[in-house]
């Protein structure tokens, strides 16, 4: 192993984020509550710096470094850029909400940035060890973030549930990894891929290992039947944390799945495809059906997340570059919509009031036609109705599924998305057809409104011109796998 410094260059964004988060940790300790904006600004600066470094070192082809632990390829660079953007938007949306609830503390920034670091490691991992390290860094930060509101029993309960089930999932994942290690004698994805492609006699341990890994992944994604934690955590966590959990980690989870299934176990496609089919169908069914019965918007969106993850799995299970590309497009689009819709809850909340009941959206069109219009776009996009970008995400994964001749699966998927359309339409109905019962003015900063407008309009703009975003995803997958 060479010890030259050049092998650290691909890691510069990670190193930078680590240094900055340590700095913020120290600086923030010396800041009073009135100077918290310094941490806020430093956090955004960190994201800007990381964006700059990632763009500087944008790779055209995969570059494996650190003795096979770390890979810098177009996929990781593109996904990292989306991660930075998503975390930055979360920080802007959450600011007022956290301040009003006494959660606007250094811990939030530090935990969010540590979670980001974990996600960056996951996205760039080419080894089971780094994958697991990244995942744990992310997960532990998230557990703490959910529990940050320590005097709220609901949040504490959610954190506990999240922690116990998350630890169980990590255990399963580790167990599966150890079996794969037993079969192949390596933890590096490239070696495993090579070894399995050559064929092995140890079919039974291999299949067992795959089952455990898929189960662990399903846990992290929140796919049915490993979804129990999702509604409770989404509902119980402070909305700002729900926003965080519901956005960037989905991108990281996608990368995690693609690295393991697409780069390590791609020769075992026939083994894991059927498992993913079951997960996808169940997720779409349970997610869409259970969402109908919800009266709490956060809980409804949690079930909607489950169904969206089911949809994303459709792209993954195709197992082709086309399929992974469509799943990546789906997850990026989903993140965009998720940011917008949870952000809207934050935007409508104020001190002592959570706008997380469906009825809080009643008559929004009378209170603020512009915000109602943005939410309308987001909801139709979630439902997959053109000309919003959500439609193209669905189109791309359906196309990948039809390509592998699973037409019945495409039919099942569209039927469940029809059911899904119902509860998104209900939000539109509440905003447009009903009278408001809460007429207090909506107080938010101009910057939050601006970002929200960009977020909502992006859903429409990428719907009219989806080509650039789709091309980025197709290119990233094509050049990396």
């Amino acid at each position, binding site marked *: 192993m060479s010890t030259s410094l050049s092998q650290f260059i691909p890691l510069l964004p990670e190193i930078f984020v680590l240094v900055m988060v340590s700095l913020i940790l120290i600086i923030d300790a010396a800041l009073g509550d009135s100077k918290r904006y310094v941490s806020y600004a430093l956090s955004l600066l960190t994201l800007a710096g990381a964006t700059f470094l990632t763009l500087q070192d944008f790779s055209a082809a995969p570059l494996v470094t650190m003795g096979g632990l770390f890979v810098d390829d177009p996929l990781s660079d593109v996904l990292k850029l989306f991660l930075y953007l998503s975390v930055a938007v979360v920080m802007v949306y959450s600011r007022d909400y956290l301040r009003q609830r006494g959660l606007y503390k250094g811990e939030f920034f530090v935990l969010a940035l540590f979670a980001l670091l974990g996600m960056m490691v996951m996205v760039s991992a080419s080894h089971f060890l780094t994958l697991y390290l990244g995942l744990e860094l992310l997960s532990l930060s998230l557990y703490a973030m959910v529990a940050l509101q320590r005097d709220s029993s609901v949040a504490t309960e959610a954190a506990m549930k999240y922690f116990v089930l998350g630890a169980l999932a990590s255990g399963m994942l580790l167990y599966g990894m150890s079996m794969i290690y037993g079969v192949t004698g390596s933890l590096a994805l490239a070696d495993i891929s090579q070894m399995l492609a050559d064929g092995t006699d140890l079919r039974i341990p291999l299949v067992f290992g795959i089952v455990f890994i898929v189960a662990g992944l399903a846990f992290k994604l929140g796919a049915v039947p490993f979804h129990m934690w999702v509604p409770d955590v989404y509902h119980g966590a402070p909305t700002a944390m729900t926003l965080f959990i519901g956005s960037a980690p989905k991108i990281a989870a996608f990368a995690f799945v693609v690295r393991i299934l697409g780069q390590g176990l791609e020769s075992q496609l026939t083994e894991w495809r059927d498992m993913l089919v079951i997960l996808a169908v169940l997720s779409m069914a349970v997610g869409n059906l259970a969402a109908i019965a919800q009266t709490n918007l956060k809980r409804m969106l949690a079930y909607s997340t489950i169904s969206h993850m089911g949809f994303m799995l459709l792209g993954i299970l195709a197992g082709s570059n086309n399929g992974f590309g469509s799943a990546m497009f789906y997850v990026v689009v989903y993140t965009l919509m998720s940011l917008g819709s949870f952000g809207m809850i934050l935007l409508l909340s104020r001190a002592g009031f959570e706008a997380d009941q469906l009825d809080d959206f009643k008559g929004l*069109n009378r209170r603020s*036609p512009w915000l109602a219009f943005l939410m309308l776009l987001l909801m139709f996009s979630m439902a997959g*109705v053109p000309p919003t970008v959500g439609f193209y995400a669905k*189109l791309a994964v*359906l*196309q990948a599924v*039809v390509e592998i001749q699973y037409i019945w699966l495409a039919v099942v998927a*569209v039927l469940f998305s029809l059911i899904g359309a119902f509860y998104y339409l209900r939000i539109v109905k509440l905003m447009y057809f009903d009278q408001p019962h809460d007429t207090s003015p909506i107080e938010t900063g101009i910057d939050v409104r601006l970002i929200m407008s960009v977020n909502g309009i992006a859903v429409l703009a990428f719907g009219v011109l989806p*080509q650039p975003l789709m*091309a980025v995803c197709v290119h990233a997958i094509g050049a990396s796998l």
Partner: protein
Amino acid sequence: MFGFPILTLVIWVPILAGALVLATGSDRNAALARWIALAGSVLGLIVAIPLITGFDVATSNMQFVEKQPWIEALNVHYHLGVDGISMPLILLNSFITVLVVIAGWQVIQDKVAQYMAAFLIMSGLINGVFAALDGILFYVFFEGMLIPLYLIVGVWGGPNRVYAAFKFFLYTLLGSLLMLVSLIYLYFQSGGSFDIQTWHTTTLGMTAQTLMFFAFLLAFGVKVPMWPVHTWLPDAHVEAPTGGSVVLAAITLKVGAYGFLRFILPILPDASQEYAWFVIALSLIAVAYIGLVALVQADMKKLIAYSSIAHMGFVTLGFFMFNPLGLEGGLVQMISHGFVSAALFLCIGVMYDRLHSRQIKDYGGLVNKMPVFAAFFMLFAMANAGLPATSGFVGEFMVIMAAVKVNFWFAFVAATTLIFGAAYTLWMYKRVVFGNVTNPHVEEMQHVNAREILLLGVLAICVLGMGLYPKPFTDVMHVSVVDLLAHVAQSKLP
């Protein structure tokens, strides 16, 4: 011929005008919103005029074609073009949009800008449906138009509007999602193309054709609407504001029928021949049975809604006779029904604005108070009943002629519409217009104003003009229809 992209203008002028109207904001600027909407809709009609003047009736090729790559990752193109089938429909839509804007001028006082914007945007999207030659582009317009229509029914509709809006949206979405899967399947069968004209020559096995036939049939059948998936229409019609009903009846139903001609017949000719009996049976049930249902309606809007279903049954019947007369008859019937149903819904709107009731029993003796209106109403009622010299007669007569050629009994059942149609329309007319004034509120009803006379007068000219001299319409369609039938006659089995 024309250097600039006419179809793009036809689609985007109304949409951009709609966005502009939306920008006027709250009801304080309602007057401004109305005038911009009117200007936008008139401009939308003006930019569509070159489609007539520059149209070549001698060719069945697509005209005014525009083609740009749109989503390269999926090989989707921004591909537009019209033939003799779609061109008249675009004009009809652009024309009706102007009427709808005028019809909502005084009636709509709440959220005027949003109302006008929804109609303009929908008008642009519907033009897109008729002009799209790429499967995904078609789907985007086809689905996109649901959003404004959902809001129109739900926000400005009657008491049961929420139910109607949901039912309408989910019904139509069910059909179109299965169509989406078919479109993706066709993409792979045609070697990676979403081009509709390429699909016209793609070979397909019988099983695939059959499955796709029923998927498309559901998608377009719900929109037409065909019996037994028609139940959303009476609900949506009754609850929609006048403008919404006009657009629903005059335009959106045509989108479904248009889909038969652009997708089902040319792409799936063998399945179309095989299952023609099925569509014919459904069409005849719509004509005869729904005609009887219309007879017993107490609500005028519901009556006209059922009458629309019966008339659209004629359209699908004509299509599946597979001869030029039937197809052209169906197309003429589509245009004619666009005029007549729009006029009848406007008439009901005129009465509703004065009495705030749609129940037949609340009226009676209207001729004493509104003689001019009664005359217009008479003309449109006669057209709905298929009286010769009105446009309603031409299409029905052509379809019945075509049906006689195929099977006498088809024609026999179809011809019952001449009796039922006359019965339900004229009976309603009699109860509403003639007799003594029994409801004291009818005594207070005001004359039709200039705006209403303008609307009804323009439509009366269309109805009579098309009834007396339909040749320009059939000339435009003829070559395209013959070409379409050549596609249908050619087996695509591998």
